[in-house]
C-alpha cells in the first residue's frame, strides 16, 4: 500500500471516528439554538461559529458528516445488490434477457443523473419528517444508482457464463439458481466490491448536490448538502472563511476515497 493510500485510509478513519463521537465532542447537539449568538463568528463556545438561527456549526458539521458517512455506504449496498441481481442475472441468462435488461439500463443511463434524481425525488412528498427525508434521499440514490454497475456486472457475468468451469458444472448436471448462486455470483465478488466502494463518494456528492438545491435532507437534520447551502449567503472568502469548513471536509473525504479506490477503479473497469 502506497504512502498516499495509507494516509487517505487514516484520514477516513479519523473523520469517521470523530463523527461517531459527535455526542461527546459536541454535546450541545445540532438543533439547539443559541438565539443571542445567531450568525456569530468562531469563539471558545462555538468553534466554527453559529449559523443564521444560532445553531452550533461545529456540531452540525460533525452530525452531518456522520449521516453522510453512514448512509452513503448503505445506499451503495442497495445499489450494488440491485446491480448484482439485474446485471449478474442478465449476463448469466444471456439472450433476450440480457438485451432487454441492457436496453433498460441504457435508457436510465441516457438520462443525466441529476435530472433523474430530481424528477424521482419530486414524485415523493417533500414535506416529510427529517428522519424520513434522510432515508428517502439515500434510498433513492441506492435505487437509482445501480445502472452503470449493472452494465459492468452483465459483461463480467457473461464472460463467467462462457468460462470452462461453468461449462463443466453445467455438464455435471448443476443448473438454474444453484449454478448462479454457487458458481457465478461468488466470482463476481471483486467487481461487486469495487462497485460498492466506487459508489460511496459518488453518492456523497449526489446528496450534497441535492441538499444544496433544497431537495435533500430536511431541516433541522444536518447533512453536507444542507451545510453547503450556507455558501449561498457568503459575500467573500476573507470575511467568513469558517463557512468553508464543510466544503473543505467534504473535498478531503471524497479525495481520500478516490485515493483509496484508485486500485478498485481498475477492477471495476
Amino acid at each position: 500500500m502506497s504512502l498516499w493510500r495509507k494516509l487517505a485510509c487514516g484520514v477516513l478513519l479519523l473523520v469517521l471516528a470523530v463523527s461517531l463521537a459527535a455526542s461527546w465532542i459536541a454535546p450541545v447537539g445540532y438543533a439547539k439554538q443559541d438565539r443571542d449568538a445567531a450568525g456569530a463568528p468562531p469563539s471558545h463556545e462555538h468553534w466554527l461559529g453559529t449559523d443564521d438561527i444560532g445553531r452550533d456549526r461545529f456540531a452540525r458539521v460533525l452530525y452531518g458528516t456522520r449521516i453522510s458517512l453512514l448512509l452513503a455506504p448503505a445506499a451503495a449496498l442497495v445499489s450494488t445488490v440491485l446491480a448484482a441481481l439485474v446485471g449478474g442475472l442478465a449476463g448469466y441468462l444471456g439472450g433476450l434477457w440480457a438485451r432487454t435488461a441492457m436496453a433498460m439500463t441504457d435508457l436510465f443511463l441516457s438520462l443525466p443523473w441529476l435530472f433523474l434524481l430530481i424528477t424521482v425525488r419530486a414524485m415523493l412528498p417533500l414535506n416529510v419528517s427529517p428522519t424520513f427525508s434522510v432515508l428517502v434521499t439515500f434510498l433513492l440514490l441506492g435505487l437509482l444508482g445501480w445502472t452503470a454497475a449493472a452494465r459492468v456486472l452483465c459483461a463480467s457475468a457473461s464472460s463467467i457464463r462462457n468460462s470452462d468451469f461453468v461449462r463443466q458444472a453445467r455438464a455435471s448436471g448443476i443448473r438454474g439458481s444453484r449454478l448462479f448462486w454457487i458458481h457465478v455470483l461468488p466470482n463476481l465478488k471483486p467487481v461487486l466490491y469495487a462497485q460498492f466502494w466506487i459508489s460511496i463518494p459518488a453518492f456523497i456528492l449526489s446528496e450534497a448536490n441535492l441538499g444544496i438545491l433544497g431537495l435533500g435532507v430536511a431541516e433541522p437534520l444536518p447533512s453536507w448538502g444542507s451545510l453547503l447551502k450556507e455558501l449561498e449567503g457568503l459575500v467573500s472568502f476573507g470575511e467568513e472563511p469558517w463557512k468553508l469548513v464543510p466544503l473543505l471536509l467534504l473535498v478531503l473525504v471524497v479525495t481520500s476515497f478516490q485515493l483509496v479506490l484508485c486500485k478498485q477503479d481498475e477492477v471495476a473497469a
Partner: protein
Amino acid sequence: MLGRRIVQHGLTLVATALLGGFLAATLVRLAPGFDADETALDPHLSSQSIQALRQNRSEQHNLLTFYIRSLHLALRGDLGTSISLKQPISSLLRDRIPLTFRVVTLGLLMSWAGVLALALSTARVRTPAYDLLATVTAGLLLCVPAAALALLSVLWNLPGAFAIAVIIFPRDYRYTRNLLDQAYSLPHIITARAKGLSPARILFWHVVPVAGPQLLALAGVSVSLALGAAIPVEALCGLAGIGQLAWQAALARDLPLLVNITVLVTLVTLLANSGADVIGYAWRGRQA
C-alpha cells in the same frame, strides 16, 4: 452500412421517445392529486360546465387512453399545462431553450478547449511534475459537488457557462489524457517523433486519426454531463433556462412540466450520442 447505423439510431430514438413518453404519462397519471381539479370549484361555472369537466377527467382515467391522447396532443405541439406556472409547457420550453443552448454550448466549448490544451500538453511534455499538477487539479475539481462549484462561480461573479465548463472539465480530462497518452505511446508515433516530424504533423496526421473517434464519443457523452450541470448552475446563478425550470418544477412537484423536460433532455442526450457514434463510425470506415 452507415445508412443502416443511422436507421438503427433513428429507431432507438423513436422507441425511447415512445417508451419515455409512456413512462412520463404513467408517472403523471399516478401522481398524487391527478384527480383533483380546482377549476371545478369555481363558483362561476354552471352545472353543465362542471359536468363537462368531470366527463373530460373521467376519460383520462384509463392509462392507455390517457397516453394515446397525450401523444396525439404532443404531436400537435401541445405538451399540456404547467401546474405551478399555469402556462402551456411548450411555450415555457420555447422561451427557455435558447438560453440553455447558449450556456451549455459555450460551457462545452470552454471545457473542451481546456481539456485538449491540458491533455495535449501533458501528453507532449511528459514531465512528471506537470502531469501531477494537472491530475491533482482535475482530481480536486472532481471531488467538489457541481452545485458547490456553481455557488463558487456566483461568489466570484463568473458566468454560468464557465461554471459548466469547470464541472465537465475534470470528467473529460481524465479520459482524454489517457487516450492521448496511449496514442502517443504507439510504436509508429514514437518512430515519427524519433524521425523528427513536427509536433503539429504528428498530432494531425498520426494522433488525431487514432484517438479521434473515441474523443468524439466522449464529446457526445459530455453533452449529457453539461445538461446535468445546467440544473445547479442555472438554479444557483439565476439563469432562466431549462435547468432552472426543472429545479422549480421539482420544488413545486409540477410533474407534467418535469417529465416533459426529462423526456426532452433524454432525447437531446441520445441525439448527441447517436451523432457522435455515426460520425465516429464513418471516420473509422474511411480510415479502413
